């Protein structure tokens, strides 16, 4: 079976513009996370969409489902998020296995709740890639030169830009493989993971690339938020 996993576990805001996590801010006439969820709900290949939400915001998320997608509530399962991104993914993985049993064939399409501009092509290519290769990451070619600095003061290295990509989401995996790799990691290794693909990379499991879109932006800062509002022709609130 194929599952969506929308990650909305965070509570922190780098935006300083609101008293709520950024995924719950309005974009146009509905919250960012609802836009993201609606796109996933239109993917007919997904059997269920799980949403990982910080425990303090579970009720709010349930209210949003009641308000915005009342007729598709049965397609969505809300799961309490963990301490970090990968913990949230593992909570969702456990819930999937609780609901549907473990299987060698389950696919999980993980996605940032604050990337509402994801396209159906990207979602479908993630599913195809995860089925074929077991692990895929969505990326775009880097446009800015990437500079490496070990101490934050002096350039250590400037890698060849042609080999540089910027990671987006979705990131999609064979669920069983991802769980096994994750539980094989030491606590020190888990601490340095910033995203789920790295679980595979540190264990030498190949992760194939899916072409993302520049427009599939992550709404993290106030400027991202203003850009996103402008993209859909609205005004930023804040």
């Amino acid at each position, binding site marked *: 079976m194929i599952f969506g996993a929308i990650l909305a576990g965070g509570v922190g805001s780098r935006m300083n513009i609101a008293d709520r996590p950024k995924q719950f801010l309005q*974009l*146009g*006439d509905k919250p960012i996370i609802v*836009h993201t969820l*609606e*796109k996933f*709900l*239109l993917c*007919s290949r997904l059997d269920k969409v799980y949403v990982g939400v910080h425990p303090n915001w579970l009720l709010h998320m349930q209210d949003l489902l009641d308000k915005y997608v009342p*007729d*598709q509530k049965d397609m969505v399962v809300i799961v309490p998020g963990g301490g970090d991104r990968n913990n949230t993914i593992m909570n969702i993985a456990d819930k999937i296995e609780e609901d549907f049993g473990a299987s060698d064939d389950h696919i999980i399409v993980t996605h940032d709740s604050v990337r*509402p*501009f994801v*396209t*159906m*092509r990207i979602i*479908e290519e993630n599913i195809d890639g995860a089925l074929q290769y077991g692990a895929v990451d969505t990326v775009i070619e880097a446009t800015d030169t990437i500079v490496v600095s070990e101490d934050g003061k002096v350039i250590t290295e400037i890698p060849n830009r042609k080999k540089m990509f910027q990671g987006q989401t979705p990131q999609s995996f064979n669920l069983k493989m991802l769980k096994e790799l994750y539980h094989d990691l030491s606590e020190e290794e888990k601490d340095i993971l910033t995203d789920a693909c790295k679980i595979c990379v540190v264990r030498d499991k190949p992760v194939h690339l899916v*072409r993302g879109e520049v*427009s599939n932006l992550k709404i993290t800062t106030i400027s991202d938020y203003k850009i996103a509002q402008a*993209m*859909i*022709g*609205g005004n930023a609130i804040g």
Partner: protein
Amino acid sequence: MVNYVYQLVSPHVFSLEYEDVDFTKEVVIRPRYLAVCHADQRYYQGQRDAAVLRKKLPMALIHECCGEVIRDCTGTFQRGQKVVLIPNVPGNDDEMIYENYARGSRFLSSGSDGFMREFVNLPPDRVVPYEGIEEPIASISEFVSVGVHAATRLSLLAHSRRESIGIWGDGSLAYVVACVVRRMFPQAKVSVIGKSAAKLSSFTFVHNTYMADMLPDGFSVDHALECAGGEGSYYAIDDIITYIRPQGTVMLMGVSENKVPIRTRDILEKGLTMVGSSRSGRADFEKAVELMEDKKFQSRLRYIVYEDQPVRSIRDIQRVFETDMATPFKTSFRWEL
């Protein structure tokens, strides 16, 4: 939800538009296969009048499309059901006038966004279900429905002697019209008159094909359909007026950007009826789907549908239009954006 719309902003140039759409009403469809029409190609190539381009662009092109129902809040269709999309948006309700010609009607891909969108939402009466038609073939349903519309109106308007029907033109419109006319006028002897021997050779299912400059002495038809369009309109209409018998009905179907001089004296002398026929309505779509669900009819159409590689980027959209320029008939492609 944020929906992606792929708009032509100026000839050869596409851009992305994001629209915040309420998908909790109507029928939500994921376009699966699209087909290119000459009308789209004229926008893409910038062959329309500059004032028209200024007025209508940016706009998503393509009005020939089949897709899959993703959700339907009206309860008319099942999730996953295969459907063809009707690009005509009816205007003022007028019993005397076909929905496709009524004042106030709109056409998606001529003034409003066409089907080059991630998702399309339509009222249920703009969606026609189908079964057993290959998707690349189903994508040209609108094109077939235009042929059905013309044949239907011909049968309503023409006098009852229908022993011979002439079709002028040898492109995809003439081909589809010939297929439809053979079905809807099974007793009539159908002749196709064109300029390309190679194209005419594909009309294996009609009674006669002729090169336009080699029509036999004494050749005549009861009624005619003009499917040439463009620069060929003048010659086709002129020939039709020459070869049609008195009081025949002429269906004008080819689009011409320029004014076409016609011999009104001979139209008057023969008492001809000239009928404009371009767009189709729901009833025509339903009839088209019924015809296309017949395997033999479908096989004939396959001959004029070239399936290009899937479209996954804006560059691919441009490729499809370039391919279409280089292929003699229809270009269809899987839409994966």
